[in-house]
């Protein structure tokens, strides 16, 4: 072991003489020397787990790309090639079904972890000075991940892939001035079609992953390692992959086992669970205001709901650093926010009716109030006496 270490050290020294490897590592990433909080708890593991899942997504993605065909033309049985190639992976590619389920479950797992990771940051006010940039980079990663899963969801070319893309892309066309041109470029056509599938494939396998990896290198301050947490998480994921790959229609929607049909609109269109809260907000905003169409307000509301997290470092005035040091008002506000977020997520998965619409509108109001009123209520709290202890 000692000789291996010496040899490795020799190798690094050899490389260091020729290229600035170690110095680049130290200067370009903050993995090398960044102050980590000393009060690491259970909540601190989600970021590291998310990296593990991301790597799994990259690896399974490589193998899926070997067999997947981003082609919307019909084969001789009248099935789009893209849809058929996914079923080909499920049946004819050795272990293809496992790789596909790992990838589809991984996408949902990644979003769960990212949401929990963000929740941790709010709990511990992880974004306040001097970590604003880390938080903003993280937010950029979150938006990038949303874009990545959105384009990825078109790949199976099922009914919901097609119609969810149709709804969201059309929503962008509501943005004044550049909206229509942007959506035309995004689709590469006047309708979602083969051109859209091809460019979304290109985004999904190279553009967004490359961007995400680069952002990630800038974002990660440190990693936490605990084999027990890792194995526990892996066990849960594996149980889902082998026994509940569809997760009751939340990870793989049943209607997506029907091939995309541009001539037949499904009765109920919903994105996958991780976007349904924003989708609910899109549907909940039904009033035209200041002479602007309700549709545009809906789109703005949806986008704002995703981006508003970025303002947290300047909205949060609470003086307690960790959750237990925070006062009761902040805790209650956060609890109400989480409930309304979950309610919105649920409402986005079901067809809407007047009562549900009202509930979605109330939750939308709570959603934005949580952020916009934060400078007021987070100041009202009296922090416990040991504020700032964790930084000493």
């Amino acid at each position: 072991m000692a000789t291996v270490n010496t040899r490795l050290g020799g190798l690094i020294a050899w490389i260091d003489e020729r290229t600035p490897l170690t110095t680049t590592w130290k200067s370009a990433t903050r993995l090398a020397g960044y102050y980590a909080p000393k009060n690491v708890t259970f909540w601190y593991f989600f970021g590291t787990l998310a990296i593990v899942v991301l790597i799994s997504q990259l690896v399974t993605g490589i193998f899926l790309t070997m067999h997947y065909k981003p082609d919307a033309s019909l084969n001789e049985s009248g099935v789009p090639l893209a849809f058929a190639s996914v079923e080909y992976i499920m049946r004819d590619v050795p272990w293809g079904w496992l790789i596909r389920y790992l990838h589809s479950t991984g996408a949902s797992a990644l979003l769960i972890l990212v949401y929990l990771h963000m929740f941790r940051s709010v709990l511990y006010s992880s974004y306040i000075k001097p970590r604003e940039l880390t938080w903003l980079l993280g937010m950029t990663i979150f938006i990038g991940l949303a874009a990545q899963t959105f384009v990825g969801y078109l790949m199976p070319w099922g009914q919901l892939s097609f119609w969810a893309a149709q709804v969201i892309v059309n929503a962008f066309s509501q943005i004044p001035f550049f909206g229509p041109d942007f959506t035309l470029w995004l689709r590469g056509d006047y309708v979602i079609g083969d051109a859209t599938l091809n460019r979304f494939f290109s985004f999904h396998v190279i553009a967004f992953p490359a961007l995400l990896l680069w952002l990630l290198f800038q974002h990660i301050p440190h990693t936490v390692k605990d084999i027990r947490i890792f194995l526990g998480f892996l066990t849960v994921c594996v149980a889902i992959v082998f026994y509940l790959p569809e997760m009751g229609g939340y990870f793989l929607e049943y209607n997506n086992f029907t091939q995309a049909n541009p001539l037949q609109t499904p009765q109920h269109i919903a994105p996958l669970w991780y976007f349904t809260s924003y989708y609910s907000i899109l549907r909940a905003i039904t009033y035209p205001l200041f002479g602007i169409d309700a549709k545009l307000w809906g789109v703005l509301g949806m986008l704002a709901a995703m981006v508003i997290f970025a303002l947290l470092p300047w909205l949060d005035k609470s003086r307690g650093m960790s959750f237990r040091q925070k006062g009761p008002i902040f805790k209650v506000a956060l609890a109400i926010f989480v409930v309304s977020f979950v309610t919105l997520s649920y409402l986005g998965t079901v067809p809407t009716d007047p009562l549900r619409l009202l509930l979605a509108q109330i939750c939308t109001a709570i959603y934005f109030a949580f952020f916009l009123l934060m400078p007021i209520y987070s100041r009202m709290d009296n922090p416990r006496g040991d504020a700032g202890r964790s930084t000493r």
Partner: protein
Amino acid sequence: MNKLFLKLMLLQLLFVPLAAIAAGAAAPGVAGAAGTLINLDHAPDKSHDQAALQNGARLFTKYCLTCHSASFMRYNRLRDIGFTEQQIKEELMFATDKIGDPMKVAMRKADAQRWFGLVPPDHSVTVRARTSALGPGEDWIYTYLRSFYRDPTRPSGWNNLVFQNVAMHHVLWEFQGEQVLEDPLSKTYKLRLAIPGKLTPAEYDNLVADLVAYLKYMSEPSAGLRKELGVYVLIALFVLLAFAIVLKPGSVKLARRP
């Protein structure tokens, strides 16, 4: 202190179902296309019954495969459910002579369009696609295939309670016989067996259950292996996890470089 925090989190989770119930209370009973209230019958689970699966495969290739393709399913995959290659060639392959071929139909699409008004859908993944708020896809097909009734207003002479005005006619009618609406004027939508078929109702239900079991198998042929393998993978992970917990490889450690 951490416990208090956990309690708070758990308390918070209690609110979640409340909110969901509030939203769900508005859900109406799911109505069929023509206002019929559908209650799906539960399809018996025959996924481990090889004889039933084989019977289902025979029924599918004989009665369904004339119009409905299963273009993702290859004939030689039927070895999964206990057929020999010779059996597949002699008893199941009518449209091709290559055992590695997928199950396609000989009918031309233009003809199908002219005869039925649409191309009959491919059935490779129908069971998965038919899963909905009503219930699992196998229940839908099981109920559908038992809900045909005589309707003189339809071009085929048949209608269906689960799928109103469906283009398909009752292919298995000689087994089931002919059902009619008990009272066409009322909204009860109950069926009565007017002319008995070759099989008793119980026998017919069993036949449909076999066919549905096969369709379910075909919608994910790797499901059997998946569930079998899952046990071993989970056991291995639990053992590793147990070791990790017992041996406690240090408490939380930060990977910080100097």
